[in-house]
């Protein structure tokens, strides 16, 4: 039994890992396609039909590029930067419930790698670690632009983690649990989705996740116009590729987190009213969950090709003077409403 359990989890981890990498790979193509479409051009369409081989070509190119480590760089930390970035990006997905239970014969498979009872805290911890890859990489490059990028990444991440945490506290007051699995299970059907009870919290959370994943309009750590490439100025070859990859994986994972915290994860409307068997509900649930994730990824890209980058002082003003007071107000409002609901109904 123990061995079967280990094998089951191992297979699940491998599948999720592969899916994550493939989605991250094709996010690069999707990004370029969407950029093209929004600028009235077709985007990359030469490699294969509709350019579907483009990510493979890009990956191959990254592998064969010359690897340059600057003479003044701190070698071991320089190598560790991208490694840390991609590892932290990949392990975040461990606590996300991808679906309900899949029953094969007598054996029930949980479509979640680890049901940690502090799932949300785990995600926060790992996301907070993610900035270390950027900081180490930027510092070890021995380049002032990289260092500036790293400093910006650190300060941005600290500022926005506070309001992200505060917006989550309001959500936790509604859910009464930290386990991802239970939070998603609570949002059965359509009306129970937490977006209906926490719209303000969701707004704060999505803004903060843009900042945490260093996406436009919060991509100050990269900031081509001011800092050349920001923290990855000195990186070349697959190390640069890993940094970019980790950005896309982060985007995928935060889309998954948003979908499961606020948009009901694998739940879909009328899921128990259509007379489907348990396994079918699970499978459709997984597909629905991925559709939600893709919608969020599209939203990330849509925003990227709509908004310009914030100035640094605007970023700080937004973080400290707008989002944190709003998040605190949201907590107070949630508390008042919860008490009112308990006393009146």
């Amino acid at each position: 039994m123990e061995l079967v359990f280990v094998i089951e989890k191992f297979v699940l981890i491998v599948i999720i890992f592969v899916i994550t990498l493939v989605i991250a790979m094709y996010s690069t193509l999707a990004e370029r396609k969407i950029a093209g479409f929004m600028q009235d051009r077709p985007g990359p369409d030469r490699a294969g039909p509709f350019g579907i081989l483009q990510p493979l070509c890009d990956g191959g190119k990254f592998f064969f590029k010359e690897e340059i480590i600057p003479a003044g760089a701190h070698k071991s930390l320089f190598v560790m930067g991208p490694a840390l970035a991609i590892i932290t990006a990949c392990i975040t997905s461990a606590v996300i419930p991808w679906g309900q239970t899949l029953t094969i014969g007598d054996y029930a498979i949980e479509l979640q790698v680890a049901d940690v009872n502090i799932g949300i805290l785990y995600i926060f911890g790992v996301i907070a670690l993610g900035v270390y890859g950027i900081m180490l990489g930027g510092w070890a490059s021995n380049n002032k632009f990289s260092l500036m990028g790293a400093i910006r990444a650190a300060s941005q991440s600290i500022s926005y983690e506070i309001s992200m945490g505060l917006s989550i506290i309001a959500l936790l007051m509604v859910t009464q649990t930290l386990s991802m699995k239970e939070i998603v299970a609570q949002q059965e059907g359509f009306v129970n989705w937490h977006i209906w009870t926490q719209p303000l919290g969701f707004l704060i959370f999505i803004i903060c996740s843009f900042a945490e994943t260093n996406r436009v309009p919060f991509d100050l750590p990269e900031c081509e116009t001011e800092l050349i490439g920001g923290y990855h100025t000195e990186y070349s070859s697959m190390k640069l590729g890993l940094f970019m990859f980790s950005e896309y994986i982060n985007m995928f994972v935060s889309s998954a987190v948003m979908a499961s915290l606020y948009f009901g994860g694998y739940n879909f409307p009328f899921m128990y009213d259509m007379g489907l068997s348990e396994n079918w509900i699970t499978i459709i649930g997984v597909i629905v969950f991925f559709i939600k994730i893709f919608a969020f990824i599209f939203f990330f890209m849509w925003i990227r090709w709509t908004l310009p980058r914030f100035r640094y002082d605007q970023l700080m003003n937004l973080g400290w003077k707008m989002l944190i007071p709003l998040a605190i107000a949201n907590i107070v409002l949630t508390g008042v409403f919860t008490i009112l609901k308990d006393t009146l109904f």
Partner: protein
Amino acid sequence: MQSLSNRKKVLPQVPMTFWERIYIPAILKGMAITLRHFFKKKTTIKYPEEKRPYSKNFRGMHSLKRDEEGRERCTACGLCALSCPAEAITMIAAERQKGEEHLYREEKYAAVYEINMLRCIFCGLCEEACPKEAIYLDGPHVPADYLRKDFIYGKDKLVEQPFINLEELPVK
């Protein structure tokens, strides 16, 4: 200072309203615009498969013309080379032999005719200088290449393809 044109207009500096300051309506407006463009028809012309039509007076690659019987019109007089401001044209003349009357119209023809496409400025003066109406810049773009030597176009690339089968022509 006095305004000379009287068109100067002082715009009042109004502080932003609440809805303008929270910035979200503006973001939604921008997103609506980008989404509209997302579904718009793309203006790109996919070049190697589709080509934009050239204008009537476009001057492209040269072609050496043939006459109605498929004979080369060029008589190697050298006026094109002389008129060329970029000195892109060179040629070696040769005398037409017996039995070659179906190939060359005049008694003298160009055995070698070369245009350096890197020197050529596509001014069309060779076209104007030609007394035999033998050269026209009516082709497409000169394609890209890797080596300088490959841009020197000889008769193999310049002479128009015969539109009459030479085998069927009666030998005069």
